[in-house]
């Protein structure tokens, strides 16, 4: 057992955060510039709305979604905001560099912010698996590495597998979930007895988590359609996501009641499983031609997600020793895999239905399948590396007795007399 007191982050966190911010300002100084092209007012406002929808999802939605632990709410919300802004600033630069591999100035547009926010969302998803077991410095390092890994993964599959931006981005759910799970695997230690108690959900935090869920639920169509350019595809994406989400909500709530011995609904299932439809439909949302298909997909996703919530903590997590704090595996991982498989099937059918030879922007099916495997593999490998790095002593990881406890990271003035 280590010391009973939480090691102080006083030297570590400010040093890292301030150095990073100084470095970011320097890089922006040398490599970033405004977009000087003339702007159409209507176009600007449209880009701004799209960007803001994604930011609302990331900051409000993801921030509060993970806040259901009864003594860890401040950290969930506060750390999410921190990781988001760090991830966005870094992703803006990284996307710019990876796009043209040359030291040209990066032109800052709202669309670039939007894409960067979506990349940073991957960090927030992964953080759900390790939340409560890592301190802010570890999360900071994870955010930097994950954004880098995700950006590189997307660039490679864009270059070599000729995937378009949308399909690339929609791998985010699978990538982020398995990245987070691998990191959690590396950080996993047998939890002490007290931790079980703190890991419990409570009423008020559950309500805050519901706030996050509802914001995610409402804005999800914007997320899934954000990177599509074709008006028709965009319309399809919005409708399909909308219906899939609706169906997965009904499924999740009813299955949750059905699997309980006395027919009661579990709030944790509601938080997570109602979102499964949006995840599952992500990769194929622009290809699905009629709403009933999206609805079937939402139904299956809701079943898988609620089933996963029931079974995974029992078998999978116990066997591998992974502790998945917020159920990332069944919220994002499994539905994401389902979505990937469906997108391959849809692509096959789409080519058959339209009976057209493969055109420029349509990816051969083998490439799509390869893309999925590549995404999984890279998430596992980079997650493993990140996890090993985070195990180092220099990050002053919290002691096990302080897991899932805000007291380790926050000053709680109403608890102890001021010192």
């Amino acid at each position, binding site marked *: 057992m280590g010391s009973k007191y939480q090691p*102080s*982050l*006083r*030297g*570590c*966190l*400010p040093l890292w*955060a*301030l150095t*990073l*911010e100084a470095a970011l*300002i*320097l890089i*922006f*100084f040398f490599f*970033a*510039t*405004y*977009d000087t092209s*003339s*702007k159409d*007012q*209507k176009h*600007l*406002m449209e880009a*701004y*709305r799209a960007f*803001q929808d994604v*930011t609302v999802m990331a*900051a*409000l939605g993801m921030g509060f979604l993970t*806040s259901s632990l*009864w003594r860890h*709410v*401040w950290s969930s*919300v*506060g750390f999410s*905001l*921190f990781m988001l*802004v*760090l991830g*966005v*600033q870094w992703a803006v630069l990284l996307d710019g560099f990876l796009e043209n591999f040359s030291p040209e100035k990066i032109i800052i547009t709202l669309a670039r*912010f939007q894409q960067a926010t979506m990349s940073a969302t991957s960090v927030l998803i992964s953080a759900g698996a390790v939340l409560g077991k890592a301190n*802010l410095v570890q999360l900071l390092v994870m955010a930097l590495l994950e954004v880098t890994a995700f950006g590189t993964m997307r660039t490679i599959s864009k270059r070599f597998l000729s995937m378009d931006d949308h399909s690339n981005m929609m791998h985010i759910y699978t990538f982020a979930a398995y990245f987070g799970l691998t990191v959690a695997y590396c950080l996993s230690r047998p939890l002490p007895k007290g931790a079980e108690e703190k890991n*419990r959900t*409570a*009423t*008020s935090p559950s309500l*805050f988590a519901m706030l996050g869920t509802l914001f995610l639920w409402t804005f999800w169509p914007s997320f899934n359609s954000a990177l599509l350019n074709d008006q028709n595809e965009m319309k399809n994406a919005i409708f399909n996501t909308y219906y899939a989400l609706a169906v997965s909500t009904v499924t999740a709530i009813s299955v949750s009641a059905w699997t309980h011995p006395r027919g*009661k609904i579990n709030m944790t299932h509601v938080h997570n499983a109602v979102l499964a439809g949006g995840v599952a439909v992500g990769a194929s949302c622009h290809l699905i031609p009629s709403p009933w298909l999206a609805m079937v997909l939402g139904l299956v996703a809701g079943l898988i997600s609620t089933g996963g919530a029931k079974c995974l903590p029992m078998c999978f997590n116990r066997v591998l020793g992974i502790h998945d704090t917020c159920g990332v595996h069944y919220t994002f991982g499994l539905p994401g895999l389902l979505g990937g498989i469906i997108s391959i099937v849809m692509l096959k059918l789409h080519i058959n239905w339209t009976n057209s030879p493969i055109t420029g922007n349509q990816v051969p099916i083998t490439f799509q399948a390869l893309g999925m495997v590549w995404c999984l593999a890279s998430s596992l490998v980079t997650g493993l590396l990140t996890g090993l790095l985070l195990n180092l002593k220099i990050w002053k990881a919290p002691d096990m007795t302080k897991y899932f406890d805000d007291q*380790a*990271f*926050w*000053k*709680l*003035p*109403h*608890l102890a007399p001021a*010192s």
Partner: protein
Amino acid sequence: MRFKFPLVAISLEVAMIVLFGLFVQYETDQTIFQKQNTTGPMDTGRFLELYPLFQDVHVMIFVGFGFLMTFLKKYGFSSVGVNLLIAALGLQWGTIMQGILHSHGQKIHIGIKNIINADFSTATVLISFGAVLGKTSPVQMLIMTMLEIAAFAGNEYVVGEIFKASDIGASMTIHAFGAYFGLAVTVILYRSGLRKGHQNEESVYHSDLFAMIGTLFLWLFWPSFNSAIAEAGDKQYSAIVNTYLSLAACVLVAYAFSSLVEHGGKLDMVHIQNATLAGGVAVGTCADMKIQPYGSMIIGSVAGMVSVLGYKYLTPFFATKLRIQDTCGVHNLHGLPGVVGGLAGIVAVDLGVSNMTTVARQAAALGSSIGTAVVGGLITGLILKIPIWGQPLDENCYDDSVYWEVPRVREHDSGFHERDDHSQLELDV
């Protein structure tokens, strides 16, 4: 309270309706056409284009500011409720005051910009409300709303029309003005009984979380606040990008400094709730100038740093030495970053990023804002001190139950470590 408050509120509302009847009309195609002739090209479709921005500002005013102030453990109802009341009164009065000044006594034709500006004018009152939070009655707040918006509209007219200074996101005219006005009021309303603090002037776990909702709403929509009345196209784009980058840099620096100044490297929720927003305040004045992305990030970083240090060292100093009881610490969130914004504007103009204004005009704008705020605040404070407005007693400060019907059992009363009734129930199930 029973007769005083309804009487004041209803007579103010009747006065508003009469004033609207006398002075205010809708913008019609004809009036837009007249404006087009005088002020250059203007798109008639601008209303619907700006409507989403107006709504973002509206969300910030009502949800953002309202919830930001709910951190006190027994004062949540008043924070959100009185916030709603004074914002609703303020936007009517703001429409009239600003309209009359800008139309030089003519009839006012309301367009989208008028209602955005009216929302802005309520923001000043809400900021000042933060300084006096918990120590005033709703009647006093109504009086303060009327007086402060009158002072604000006057100052804004001087800054915008006479000095012709640039202050697009209103760092000086709204944030610095509101903060120093509130501080001046709270100096006059000083309560020596609260010198040693008050048992209710503290937060509990969940009240701080509600405040975090307000913070996030403000944080998300701040780019809209700073860009709402910017010129369409290039300037609006710069305002959005600059504000966003400034906010992002500010968050990182605020976390770092919060951890630096706290014992044991812990974070302080008060800093996170407030200092993360300082970047949006500080970048306001020069948001639509070409200050380059790194420039806005530097402004945001400085603002985050100043704000955290202010909360840590300045607020205790103010409370003990200068007899200023600043409940929400508006001086650190709006006052200091607002001044930083004003100074950043001066520096930016000096570096030649904007040819619309000069250093002298910007400096005059900053001085005028703070001067008007302090003088106006002192006068308002003296008026509010007259003992006829139903002020709460010292021991009733920071308590909803004086003005609101509250539920008998308050779950927030139970401490962080105790299990409240809900979790007991959960265990039974």
